[in-house]
């Protein structure tokens, strides 16, 4: 239930009570309460839960994390043993779950 999804702010309407905005989630647009993110600008990303923006996404922090991860990713080939893909519940054609040594697609 604590699901929250990042979306891009397309419009801000400060005439309403509480303040509302239009947010796009990969193309799907929703009206969202933006009362608690007064600093938000069109083009920013917000984290939305049950129709409310809980916070703006900090792009600088996100980039820092990604930079760290990509540096680690460069090392992955040297460090990593063979690891399985995600257990998405999918089965092979024979009805059994795919075995760990068969590569699987990341969903």
């Amino acid at each position, binding site marked *: *239930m*604590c*699901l*929250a*999804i*990042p979306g*891009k702010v397309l419009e801000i309407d400060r005439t309403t*009570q*509480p303040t509302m905005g239009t947010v796009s*989630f*990969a193309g799907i647009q*929703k009206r969202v*309460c933006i*009362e*608690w*993110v*007064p600093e938000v600008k069109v083009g920013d*990303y917000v*984290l939305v*839960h*049950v*129709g*409310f923006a*809980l*916070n703006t*996404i*900090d*792009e600088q*922090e*996100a980039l*820092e*994390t*990604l930079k760290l*991860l*990509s540096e*680690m*990713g460069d*090392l*992955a080939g040297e*460090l*990593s*043993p063979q*690891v*399985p*893909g*995600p*257990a*998405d*519940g999918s089965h092979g054609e024979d009805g*059994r*779950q795919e075995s*760990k040594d068969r590569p699987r697609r*990341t*969903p």
Partner: protein
Amino acid sequence: MKYVDEYRSEQAARALSAEIRKATTQAWTIMEICGGQTHTIVKYGIEDLLPPSITLVHGPGCPVCVTPLEIIDKAVAIASRPDVLFTSFGDMLRVPGSAQDLLSVKASGGDVRIVYSPLDAVSLAERLPDKKVIFFAVGFETTAPANAMAVWRAHELGLTNFSILCSHVLVPPAMEAILASPTNLVQGFLAAGHVCTVMGYEEYIPIAERYRVPIVVTGFEPVDILQGIAMTVRQLESGTSIVENQYSRAVRRDGNRAARELVRKVFEPTDRKWRGIGEIPMSGYRLRREFSSFDAETVFELQDITAEESPLCIAGQVLQGLKKPHECSAFGTRCTPEKPLGAPMVSSEGACAAYYHFGRFRTRPAS
């Protein structure tokens, strides 16, 4: 989708997996608090990316799972009234009460509707003045501001036909209850990222100090979870126990102050019973006295209901991390998502449903 896809990178996941394997020298038990994190862990097979000496146990952070049976029975009683329009998030409709669930009330002609936001319930109350509109206000700190805003808005609009059936729960008291238990197995926590988006993480600092347990505020994508585990393992291996923030793109130290302030105006802490666990002191919110006219339990003068859980269901032990779902004798046979005995089999965030959908063919034993 920006801020989602990059945190599902296979390359980053493999690198983190390697780092965790390299850092781990002994057995550790780590609990993720939030049901959304449980869902990610089971769906993406995160446990298969960890060394066998690391055990993940699944915490009580699924509001659908911990809402007491008595509250479900009260919801059913209110929703069955002809003058009522009962609104709820969709995942509460199939939670079994002692006799029936909300979906069967709807099937019998009750006006039960799913809403996306609590504000949608307020709009319905505005549009339909002849109906008593109730919103089923369950959830953790993440959802509390939205529910507080619904009550605040109804108050501003002067609505007399809107109320909430409130069963809010709070994360830190539940963590302390787990840590204080003599049967506790948990040595490190992944704290719930979206709860901390609202509340910040200062309240976890004394818990980490008192119980000498590392707490890492963690996001919800597979790479977030792996990074949270890597940070927790690093602390466990070095003997440190502090609060760290993996989910810094969404969580600030003091959370969202405006949202917290509205919660403080509308709600106050109260003792709360957790389904399968029992009462935990000051572990929930109730409406403040000045908003009691929006409290459905007051409006409908409901008597206290006592209800018995199924004796087969071990949800309480699953929610405290003491047992895994597939260790239950009813798992996947007498208890399935289509016919659940306990709430963790209902919600997609419930550990039992996650295991049923994604993990029931797994062979790795729960250590």
